[in-house]
């Protein structure tokens, strides 16, 4: 049994050591780099502390194994100097780490004056972004590289939390007030955005994506609008922009709501025993009054889109659903 504890101790410290190569996603901002340094320092400090504590425990346990039933043990009650050491030294290390953490935290909280402001609305189960130029997008947003970006956020219903792992930043999105977050990305590319404050059925499907592009591409993106799109393409874009993607998959995979793949022309069985053929009227009614008929095996968790979709947008989505075989 003893060698088992020894092996797992070695394994733990080795595992702990190689996390120093930081399994964190590659840092994309200067502050994220500082966070990684602090994390690396704390990892090494923890490893040393664990080696002292666990290594010491294993060593003493091996060295002072009971030889005979009537061993005599030393009657040591305390040692003031030693006790001072292992309370003062941890205190100093902890306060040092506190100071370092505060320094980084303050940088995260000090909002730069002339940042590019993007308004973010968290809602049950999608992120909406609105730019000063009136450009709006859902779940995906584009920001220029090497420019400070300030997200001014509020929620339309419950608590959410805007989290970009690669930037090491996170801020709760509280309904009833604005909270803010800033970063300056140094890397191009796509970055995951998660919701990290529990917000209900599709909390884990509220995935956002941030595209960091060059200034030129950013301005081009701002001008984009959906004139040139066909009805079906616009329907597909609405499937994402209106947050349907959070609960309804288009490839048949299981999410919170029924998938849209292959439902056109099929009949849906309802919880109350009734059933209906999936046609224009059925889809329109399911979007505007979702709780009128609940498909068997699915929760009644869909908010109504009454007054949020124009006729033209409803048609686009229906056309899109028709194409999903």
């Amino acid at each position, binding site marked *: *049994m003893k060698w088992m*504890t020894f092996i*797992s*101790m070695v*394994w*733990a410290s080795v*595992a702990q050591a190689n*996390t120093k190569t930081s399994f964190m996603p590659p840092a994309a901002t200067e502050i994220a780099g500082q*966070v990684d340094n602090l994390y690396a320092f*704390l990892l090494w400090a*923890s490893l040393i*502390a664990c080696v002292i*504590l*666990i290594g*010491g425990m294993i060593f*003493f*346990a091996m060295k002072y194994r*009971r030889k005979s039933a009537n*061993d*005599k*043990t030393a*009657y*040591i*009650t*305390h*040692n003031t100097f*030693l*006790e001072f050491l292992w*309370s003062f030294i*941890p*205190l100093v290390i*902890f306060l040092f*780490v*506190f100071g370092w*953490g*505060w320094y980084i*935290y*303050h940088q*995260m909280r000090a909002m730069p004056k002339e940042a590019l402001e993007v308004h973010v609305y968290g809602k049950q189960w999608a992120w909406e972004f609105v730019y000063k130029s009136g450009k709006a997008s859902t779940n995906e947003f584009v920001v220029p590289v090497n420019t400070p970006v300030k997200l001014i956020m509020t929620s339309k*219903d*419950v608590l959410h*939390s805007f*989290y970009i792992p690669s930037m090491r930043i*996170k*801020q*709760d999105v*509280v*309904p*009833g007030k604005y909270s803010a977050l800033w970063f300056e990305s140094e890397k191009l590319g796509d970055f995951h955005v998660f919701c*990290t*404050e*529990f917000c209900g*059925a599709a909390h*884990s*499907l509220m995935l956002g994506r941030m595209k960091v592009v060059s200034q030129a591409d950013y301005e081009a993106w701002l001008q984009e609008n959906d004139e040139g799109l066909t009805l079906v393409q616009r329907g597909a874009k609405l499937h994402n922009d209106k947050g349907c993607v959070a*609960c309804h998959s288009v490839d048949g*995979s*299981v999410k*919170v709501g029924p998938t849209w793949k292959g439902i056109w022309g099929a009949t849906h069985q309802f919880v109350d025993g009734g059933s209906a053929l999936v046609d224009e009227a059925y889809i329109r009614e399911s979007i505007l009054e979702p709780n009128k008929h609940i498909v068997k095996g699915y929760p009644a*968790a869909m908010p109504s889109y009454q007054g949020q979709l124009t006729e033209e947008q409803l048609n686009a989505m229906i056309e899109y659903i028709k194409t999903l075989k």
Partner: protein
Amino acid sequence: MGSAAGKNYINEFAGLKSWFTSLDHKRIAILYMISVLTFFLVGGIMALLIRAELFSPGGQFLTGDSYNQVLTYHGAIMVFMVIIPGIPAIFGNFFLPLHIGAKDVAFPRLNLASWYVFMFGAALAVSTMFTSKIDTGWTFYTPYSIKTGTAVVTMVLAAFVMGMSSILTGLNFIVTTHKLRAPGMTMGRIPLFVWAIYSTAILQVLATPILGITLLLLAAERIFGVGIFDPALGGDPVLFQHFFWFYSHPAVYIMILPAMGIISELITTYSKKTIFGYTAIAYSSIGIAAVSFFVWGHHMYVSGQSEVAGVIFSFLTMLVGVPTAIKMFNWLATLYKGSITFDSPMLYALGFMFLFAIGGVTGIMLATLGLDVHFHDTYFVVAHFHYVMVGGTLMALVGAFYYWWPKMFGKMFSETYARLSFVFIFVGFNVTFFPQFVLGAMGMPRRYFDYIAPYESLNKISTVGSWLIGIGFFIVLFNLIHSLLKGAKAPDNPWGSKTLEWTVQSPPTHHNFDHDPVVTAGPYEYR
């Protein structure tokens, strides 16, 4: 030492009625043991369901609401019905009077009432499983807990009732420790387990009422919409978090302090050596209890709390880390020059020190402002609190079961199966939760039933680990049940320990001590 004709507290009176109306602190401890272990089984099944769902990305058999319900029940049952009542109600009830040489707790009727209040609350909580369930997470954060259609009011009242039971138990133990110590048993001679239960009782009495009023306000919010925590009416959800964590951080110390008390007992008994730094450990328990009221805001660094408050809380959280470090080093120093045996309770104590060391250092990482912004609400936090709760309190709980089983039931258990259970739980635990540190560093948020592809392999490992833990706990269960049925008769002092409960017969008589013990020295006199 055996009393007349093998009389003890178990066979003194017969029949179920004598158990359900018994005022004997030992019998009430057994009632608590059976109920807490049953709830632990239910909570454990929920844990296995969560891990099974997370075996691979995409919704398997638990999606959206059903996953949220399972995670909420796992959290609520484990916190309110297993780990907070656990050690104080089972081992505190059984051994606090025995440790201080008393015949019973100060208020026996109140003690029995506490069990009934606890069971009423627990029944209310479990009843929500059959009505409209709950899916808010064990933290009931508003405004989601106000908007959701599930049985939040019933669950909140159940938690209020269980909180009442916790207050009554805490009150009982404080008065017992103050007033019922045997002659000669000054506060400097009580075992460290009693110090731990005493400081836990202080936390239970001072912290639980604030949870009470918070839950009542949440119920009023749902029934009348009073608007105190509902932003739609001008309320502030962050204020709910303040009130909730003002209780819930002291609550996590209610969970760990009794475990630390048990570890002090186990380390000294199996090293056959007096504790190193008795006063340091005793005052650390009281110190942790006091400072635990100042640090709740480290759960709220990114919740909308101001930077000034965040800095104050981070600083104070660093201070509360010091007494914990002191205790770890004192246990380590107790091993020095001891005569150590590796009986199963000692394995669990060493396992506790191993896992609690990792839990402790990751706690400091989370207390650091700069890092917590990245780690908050990710699997790093989930791994941290499982390391300190399962690795800490549950390892100590199982260690205590093995340590005190001969005294409680007069039967020995199979040492090989006990050590086997340790291997399964220890290895399974590390395989389950260490990968979650890495998942947290990679940014996987908590309370997700579906995750993106990069997190898949580590989640698979973690789920396999959870099976090992499950097997380990079942081995403990079967081992102890087998010991009840066919275990060998236990001697009065199988481990050669020096605290008072080993001076009486196993299992003890109804009135504990034949003659009032007079105490002349400290609890760990291994000379």
